[in-house]
């Protein structure tokens, strides 16, 4: 019950922020652009997929057109993935620091709710807000591809779950940084530092950090660090695989779930010990 109230409050909080409207506005603009740009033309030797009037696939029989559309959808999902990282984190990073501000946190903790419930409610609210944006965008794209190309592919809709899961794993990291620093700016900077610098270095550790030393313990620590963080690139690949109807690799799901749980628990421990 309390968690549902907190989720509703967080959704209200985020819906009052300009960044969420910008996010929804960008999604709408992309969908309108997509609706205007994508089309299917019938030619003598088959059907062709066109983007802004330019042919982007060779002529294929109608039943094989779906493959070309799926490729385009996978590219679109990749763009959405980047958008979630850039705007989703930016729009929601303030949720925890704002809650923990003096004068606000007192109102929450003095109620009969535990601190981990407060954290969970706020976390779920922010993930739900971004999840709704993802669903809005992918459902819109599904309609556009269905209406303009005649391809009604449920996998595009299902990929919303993968995307939301990926954001949920990443957001646990944001919540950890937000609880630890109690600063929106610091949690955004630290998350982006991981995503754009540390994440890349760890992902390519064989060509970067491994070169520093051949010591097994050192390399195990580096491996541990790599698996500690959510497997963002693996999840991105899974999103594309899902749309392309290729078998997904479940390891990134499991690792990201464990990583998200670890960071969320760490945030809960920090919050439990903190004096306000």
């Amino acid at each position, binding site marked *: *019950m*309390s968690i549902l*109230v*907190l989720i*509703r*409050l967080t959704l*209200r*909080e985020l819906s*009052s922020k300009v960044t969420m409207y910008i996010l929804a506005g960008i999604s709408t603009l992309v969908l309108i652009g997509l609706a205007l740009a994508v089309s299917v033309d019938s030619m003598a030797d088959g059907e062709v997929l066109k983007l802004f009037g330019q042919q982007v696939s060779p002529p294929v029989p109608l039943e094989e057109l779906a493959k070309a559309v799926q490729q385009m959808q996978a590219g679109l999902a990749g763009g959405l993935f980047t958008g979630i990282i850039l705007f989703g984190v930016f729009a929601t990073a303030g949720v925890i620091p704002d809650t923990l*501000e*003096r*004068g*606000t*946190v*007192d*109102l*929450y*903790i*003095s*109620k*009969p*709710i*535990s601190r981990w419930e407060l954290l969970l409610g706020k976390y779920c609210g922010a993930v739900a807000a971004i999840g709704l944006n993802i669903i809005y965008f992918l459902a819109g794209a599904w309609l556009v591809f269905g209406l303009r190309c005649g391809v009604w592919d449920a996998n595009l809709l299902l990929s919303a779950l993968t995307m939301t899961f990926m954001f949920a794993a990443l957001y646990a990291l944001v919540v950890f940084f937000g609880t630890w620093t109690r600063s929106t700016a610091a949690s955004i900077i630290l998350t982006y530092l991981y995503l754009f610098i540390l994440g890349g270095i760890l992902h390519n550790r064989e060509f970067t950090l491994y070169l520093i030393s051949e010591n097994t313990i050192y390399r195990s620590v580096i491996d541990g660090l790599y698996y500690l963080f959510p497997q963002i690139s693996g999840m991105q690949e899974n999103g594309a695989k899902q749309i392309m109807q290729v078998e997904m690799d479940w390891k990134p799901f499991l690792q990201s779930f464990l990583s998200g749980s670890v960071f969320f628990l760490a945030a809960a421990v920090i919050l439990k*010990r903190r*004096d*306000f």
Partner: protein
Amino acid sequence: MHALECEQLTKVYRSGLRNKREIRALQEVSISVESGQIFSLLGPNGAGKTTFVKILLSLTHPTGGRALVLDHPVTESRVRRRVGYLPENHRFPGYLTGEQVMTSFGSLAGVTRSALPGRIDQLLTLVGMQEWRKVKVRKYSKGMMQRLGLAQALVNDPDLVFLDEPTDGVDPVGRKEIRDVLRNLREQGKTIFLNSHLLSEVELVSDRVAILDKGKLLKVGTVEELTTTESSYTIGCQGPLPESLRTEAEARVLGVTMSAEGVVANVTDPAALNAVIDLLRKHGVLITSVTPQRNTLEESFISLIKREIPS
């Protein structure tokens, strides 16, 4: 029955490198508050009043000691279903209306969905905010925020209410209304724990008062006990005082001042007071009353704090 009980409550904040810098916010404070009372905690800035309340609401963890709220350890979150709190400088989310604040925080406080509308109506009327219920709180003045904060603190019909500076920013009429609300709550058997700088107001409503300074509990008692001076008495007399009395009193250094209304005796013990009375009777003065002199709460508070400064 005690609404609140704490023993040897201690809080030490540590900061700096290796936590070497210590701030002793509370030092072995023991207070108990009977149910159905208005209890006020007074103290200068930094005395530890807010830390004390925050420990009782589990916002801050004590370093030592024990605290019970409504017979439950403060760490049990479910006990807070029966507790209300108005924090100092509270910040309600600006994107909510007054009514939404009440609904959201009422639900968090455990009020059932069916009971909420009636309760919200009743409380917003009580604090004079009914016509502002649909307005976003970011447009509220400080006084309006305090009124809404008070309504929010009472939304779950709590048995114990903590109010931190409830009249801060409220106009004189509003203050009177808030005092009336507090008295009304006491009549209903609720316990109110008040933190306030406004000593004149505390004096008007409190049953018992505690004075805290630098984390130490200096005194606890009723307003009367705290404002009664133990060393000064007004002795009412009938008729004019003879000049011989003045001369003898000065010669014996009895510490008396005389006026048309009577005699004020500044004495160190009851024996000295009796010596003054004996002197008056010896000179044929008819005594009509002997009354201990009372200070205002503010005077008592300042004198108590000043007495502590050398230590």
